C-alpha cells in the first residue's frame, strides 16, 4: 500500500478551497537553520545512550552469572559533534555543467541539482536549494529533485556580481544595486553611483556585508555593512585591510574577511575575523598559500557552514577547509580543473 494507491481527493469546490488554503497556510514554513545539526546531534546522543544500555545489560548478565565480578560501566557516549546544515559537502559545477553537492571527505557526489542551459558565474547554497547566477544576468533556483526555476525580477541590474543566501533569503548584487529577496518580497538597496559590489554575505538575521570597489578611484575595496531592514551601507573604517578585502562570509562570531596577505604577493591570502559593528579585529586568522596568484575577486571564494568552518575555493579547483586554526586541503572532485567548471565551489 502506498500513499497514492487510490485517487487523491478531487473535485468539489469546497475540497479545492480547503486544499488550497492548507497549502497556502504553511507555504512559508521552513525548517530552522539548525534543524539538521540538531537532528544529527540528537541521533548521536541517542545512539550513544543505546550503546551504553546494551553494554550495561550484558555486563549485568555476566555479573549475575559469576556473582563475583565487579563492573564499572563507562559512559561511552560519543561527544556531540556539531554539524553544518549541509554537513560535510560543498556545491560545485562539474565540467559537463551539472551542479552537484560533493562530500568533503570522500569527494563522492551526493546530490545532483541539474544542468543549467546557460553559463553559470556564481553559486550560493541554501538549505534545500542551490542558486546559480548566470552569464545572461539571471538567477536559477535548483533543487535536489533536479527542478530548475528561473527567478524573475530578482536581479537589480545587468550582470550579477555577487550572490548569497541565508535562512530562506537571497541577496543578489549587480553593480551598485543589491536585491534582497524574502518569500515574495524583494527589497532593493542602491549604493552611490560608481560603486560596484564585488562580494556580499548575508547572515541569518538579514544583515548584509559587502565588499565594494569604487570604479572612479584607485583605492582598494572597502567593507560595508547593511543592518537587517536597513537601506544604507555603513563603511567599516576601523579595520586596516591593507590592499583591501577580496571576499567575506559571516560566522557565528563575526565577519570573516579574506584578503591578500601582502598587496604585491597575491598567491598568499589571510582570513581575519572582525567585529561587524566596530570593525575591530576579533581573530588574527589563518594564512593560506595558494597554488597560483589571484588575479581577480572572482578567482577565489570563502564560504562558511553552521559550525564556522570555512571553505576557501578557487577557480583552479583547489580548496582548503579552515577549521579554527587548522587548515586542510580538500581533495575530491574538484582537485583537478578538468573535473569541475571554473567557478569556486561553495559550502
Amino acid at each position: 500500500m502506498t500513499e497514492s494507491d487510490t485517487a487523491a481527493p478531487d473535485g468539489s469546490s469546497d475540497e479545492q478551497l480547503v486544499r488550497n488554503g492548507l497549502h497556502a497556510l504553511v507555504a512559508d514554513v521552513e525548517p530552522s537553520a539548525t534543524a539538521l545539526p540538531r537532528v544529527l546531534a540528537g541521533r548521536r546522543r541517542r545512539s550513544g545512550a543505546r550503546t551504553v544500555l546494551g553494554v550495561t545489560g550484558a555486563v549485568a548478565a555476566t555479573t549475575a552469572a559469576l556473582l563475583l565480578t565487579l563492573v564499572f560501566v563507562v559512559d561511552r557516549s560519543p561527544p556531540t559533534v556539531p554539524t553544518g546544515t549541509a554537513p560535510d559537502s560543498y556545491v560545485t559545477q562539474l565540467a559537463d555543467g551539472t551542479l552537484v553537492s560533493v562530500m568533503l571527505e570522500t569527494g563522492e557526489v551526493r546530490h545532483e541539482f541539474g544542468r543549467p542551459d546557460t553559463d553559470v558565474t556564481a553559486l550560493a547554497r541554501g538549505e534545500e536549494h542551490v542558486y546559480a547566477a548566470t552569464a545572461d544576468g539571471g538567477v536559477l533556483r535548483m533543487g535536489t529533485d533536479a527542478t530548475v526555476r528561473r527567478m524573475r525580477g530578482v536581479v537589480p541590474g545587468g550582470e550579477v556580481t555577487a550572490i548569497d543566501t541565508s535562512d530562506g533569503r537571497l541577496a543578489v548584487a549587480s553593480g551598485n544595486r543589491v536585491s534582497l529577496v524574502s518569500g515574495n518580497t524583494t527589497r532593493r538597496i542602491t549604493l552611490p553611483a560608481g560603486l560596484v559590489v564585488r562580494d556580499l554575505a548575508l547572515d541569518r538575521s538579514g544583515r548584509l556585508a559587502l565588499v565594494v570597489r569604487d570604479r572612479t578611484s584607485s583605492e582598494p575595496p572597502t567593507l560595508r555593512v547593511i543592518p537587517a531592514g536597513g537601506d544604507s551601507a555603513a563603511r567599516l573604517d576601523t579595520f586596516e585591510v591593507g590592499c583591501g578585502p577580496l571576499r567575506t562570509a559571516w560566522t557565528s562570531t563575526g565577519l570573516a574577511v579574506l584578503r591578500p596577505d601582502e598587496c604585491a604577493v597575491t598567491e598568499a591570502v589571510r582570513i581575519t575575523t572582525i567585529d561587524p559593528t566596530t570593525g575591530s579585529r576579533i581573530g588574527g586568522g589563518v594564512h593560506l598559500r595558494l597554488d597560483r596568484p589571484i588575479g581577480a575577486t572572482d578567482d577565489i571564494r570563502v564560504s562558511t557552514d553552521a559550525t564556522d568552518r570555512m571553505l576557501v575555493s578557487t577557480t583552479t579547483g583547489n580548496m582548503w577547509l579552515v577549521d579554527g586554526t587548522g587548515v586542510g586541503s580538500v581533495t575530491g572532485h574538484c582537485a583537478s580543473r578538468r573535473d569541475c567548471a571554473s567557478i569556486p565551489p561553495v559550502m
Partner: protein
Amino acid sequence: MDESTAELTDLYHEHYSGLLRMAVLLVDDGSAAEDVVQDAFMRVFDSRARLRDRDKALAFLRRTVLNKSRSLLRRRQVSRKYQHRLVQRESGPDESVHGVDRTVLADAIARLPPRQREAVVLRYYADFSEAYTAKIMKVTPGAVKAYCSRGVSRLSSLLRERV
C-alpha cells in the same frame, strides 16, 4: 559519515520540510511542530529494518509525527493551557491566501475535532489516499471518508461564517 547518518541526512533533505508543514497544520505552532518532527527524525533509525528500507522509515516518520502531534494536543488540553497560537496572530497586509484570511483559516482548522483535522490534513495537504490515511490513523477507510466529508463541510461553513 556513517551509513545511518548519510541515510538520515538524505531523509531530512527529502522529507523534513513536508513533515514540518504537516505538523504545523496538526499542532498550529511552528516551534512545537519542529520539536515533533525533530523527535521523529531522531528515532527513525532505532530499528535496523527502517535503516535498510526507505519506505518503512518514511512511514514511521509520518506515523510518529501524527502520534506525537496527538500527544502534544492532549497534553495541552490536560494542562488547560491549550491556546490556538495561529488564532492569536494578527492579520497583516499579506495575510490573505486565496481570498481567505490566514487567521480565519487557521482558526477554522484549529476548531475541527482532532480526528477530522488529522484526516483533512493528511488527505488534502499531504495528498495521501484514503487507504494510506486510514493506515496511518489506524482507522478504517470508511472512517477517513466520513472524517474528511464532515471536516470539509465544517471548514467550509466556518470559513463562510467568518469571511
